[in-house]
């Protein structure tokens, strides 16, 4: 027998207290997606310093004259806040990847009954991978 289910306007974020695991997964996927596309534009902008470098432009980095690309990238990497943001970016990317795998499985109809558990698994794995990556991401930078 077919049943109809009135889900209400789930796009109403004011109802966040009623949200279930699947709804949170949907919101986190959107949020991380916005972050990632925003970052992609920033990333290409920063990498565009390669055009200046190829043109022979140089800059000072820690008292040394270096090409514009090396100076821009290493200059950014020397900032503590940039490293923190990179860890944040990793967390965002890892969650988006893991939840994306979960969504592909949901679309294929695989493990539908465990979709809430796989969301929690995505969160936990994201936390573990992010924490485990902190030493590598923060290597050689001081406050």
């Amino acid at each position, binding site marked *: 027998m*077919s049943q109809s289910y009135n889900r209400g306007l789930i796009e109403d974020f004011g109802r966040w207290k009623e949200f279930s695991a699947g709804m949170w997964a949907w919101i986190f996927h959107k949020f991380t*997606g916005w972050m990632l*596309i925003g970052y992609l534009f920033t990333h*290409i902008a920063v990498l565009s310093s*390669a055009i200046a470098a*190829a043109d022979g432009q140089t800059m000072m980095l820690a008292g040394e004259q270096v090409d514009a690309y090396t100076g821009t990238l*290493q200059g950014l*990497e020397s900032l503590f806040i940039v490293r923190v943001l990179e860890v944040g970016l990793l967390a965002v990317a890892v969650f988006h990847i893991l939840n994306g795998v979960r969504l592909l499985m949901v679309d294929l109809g695989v493990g539908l009954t465990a979709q809430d558990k796989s969301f929690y698994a995505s969160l936990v794995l994201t936390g573990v991978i992010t924490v485990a990556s902190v030493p590598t991401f923060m290597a050689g930078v001081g406050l």
Partner: protein
Amino acid sequence: MAERYSSFTPGGTAWFLQRVTAAFLIVVLAFHFFLLHFVNHASEITFAGTQARMEDVGYFLTMVLFLIAGAFHGVNGVYNALVNQGLSGTPKKVVLAVLVIAAGLLIVQGVWVALVMRGMI
């Protein structure tokens, strides 16, 4: 079961491409992060090192495809999120046009940068 729980729209090209690019991006994004943070540390990246990586035609093509797939997946995702929030009518068309132009510019700029890194321009 009368209800359809999949977001699949039969014949939806954008839906299909979103999934294809997703599968591609999962692998390449993981590779990219691993290569440029764990194999080569981001803080030690130099123009010479980037040029050397880009000399490998397979790496170069992967990075260009990565950019195109990422730009499409991201912009299509943003568009779908906005449509999901109730965007319709003329604003929907304007947003689509702006996003298509933004993605186009991003790809052109990115390919230009990649060609410069490879020493082809």
